[in-house]
């Protein structure tokens, strides 16, 4: 018997990263923009998705991949009620979506007809950050009642994102939320990231978000391979 050392140097989540890349190629082939929405539970992922569908469904074909840890279709039902194709992924208790789960979701949709795929990740500010899905854009929805210290407590989730939506701005008069402190944390983690303040409830700031997303979808639609 002999012993030897085998050099490897492989990212432990390399298999997931590779699958994510293949997912992205499949989106690209169809000129479909995919956006991964991450947030803590209750930040307003589903309500912003619904407002987004209402704002953009006349201009674009939209589909939604819903991730949930429990076999419930509460969110999927709301999207379905707007007449939008939706596929539900139950992670079976897992705290995040991964690239394989998203692939299964993609297989249930006809991407050929779709301009925008919205992926609603599991409500969690820790684990989704570690698993690439193949989305072109990653975003976090933060919300006023969660507090201004979240970038300092959950730094990883803010790092790989292209857009940060700060939701529930209508609650500012009732909650101590220091925007400067919050923004400084975001800037340290992700200099120059797009920050959009809005209220899904009142619609305030929603146009800024929709216009930002329109620009991203159009860029992908007209991108050459």
């Amino acid at each position: 018997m002999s012993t030897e050392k085998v050099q490897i140097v492989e990212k432990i989540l390399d298999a997931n990263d590779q699958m994510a890349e293949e997912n992205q190629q499949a989106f690209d082939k169809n000129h479909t923009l995919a956006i991964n929405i991450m947030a803590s539970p209750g930040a307003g992922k589903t309500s912003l998705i619904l407002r987004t569908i209402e704002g953009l469904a006349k201009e674009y074909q939209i589909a939604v991949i819903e991730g949930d840890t429990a076999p419930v279709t509460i969110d999927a039902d709301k999207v379905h009620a707007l007449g939008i194709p939706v596929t539900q992924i139950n992670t079976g208790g897992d705290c995040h979506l991964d690239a394989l789960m998203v692939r299964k979701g993609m297989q249930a949709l006809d991407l050929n007809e779709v301009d925008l795929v919205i992926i609603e990740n599991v409500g969690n500010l820790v684990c989704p950050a570690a698993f690439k899905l193949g989305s072109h854009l990653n975003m976090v929805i933060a919300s006023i009642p969660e507090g201004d210290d979240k970038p300092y407590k959950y730094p990883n989730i803010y790092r790989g994102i292209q857009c940060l939506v700060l939701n529930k701005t209508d609650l500012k008069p009732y909650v101590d939320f220091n925007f400067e402190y919050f923004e400084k944390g975001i800037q340290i983690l992700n200099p120059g990231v797009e920050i959009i303040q809005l209220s899904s409830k009142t619609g305030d700031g929603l146009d800024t978000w929709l216009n930002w997303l329109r620009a991203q979808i159009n860029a992908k639609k007209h991108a050459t391979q």
Partner: protein
Amino acid sequence: MHELAVTESLLKTATEYALENDAKKVTSLNLLIGTLSGIVDDSVQFYWDMISADTICSYAKLNIERQPAKFKCQSCQTEYALDGELSPCPNCGSVNIRVIAGDEFLLQSIEIEK
């Protein structure tokens, strides 16, 4: 929080390399984990003992090297270690900084018996 998924991936990768190299048994794995990766060593070890049982990696030792987080200021190029709460550049106060170390999550090598 997601250490089970991560440990499963680790077992899969180590097993693939072990089989490729005609190993009878894997005796240890050398990992490099950055402090920003959010991975808890004890949890990885806990799941490892559970899922590696009765595999080629059973009883293999996990040697985990920790890589501290390091930032580099984009304004004045100062490099500094992240110690505690996120903080602007200690030299010029800029928040325009980049992470240059601490994200690592690598299986660097395995030791095998043939």
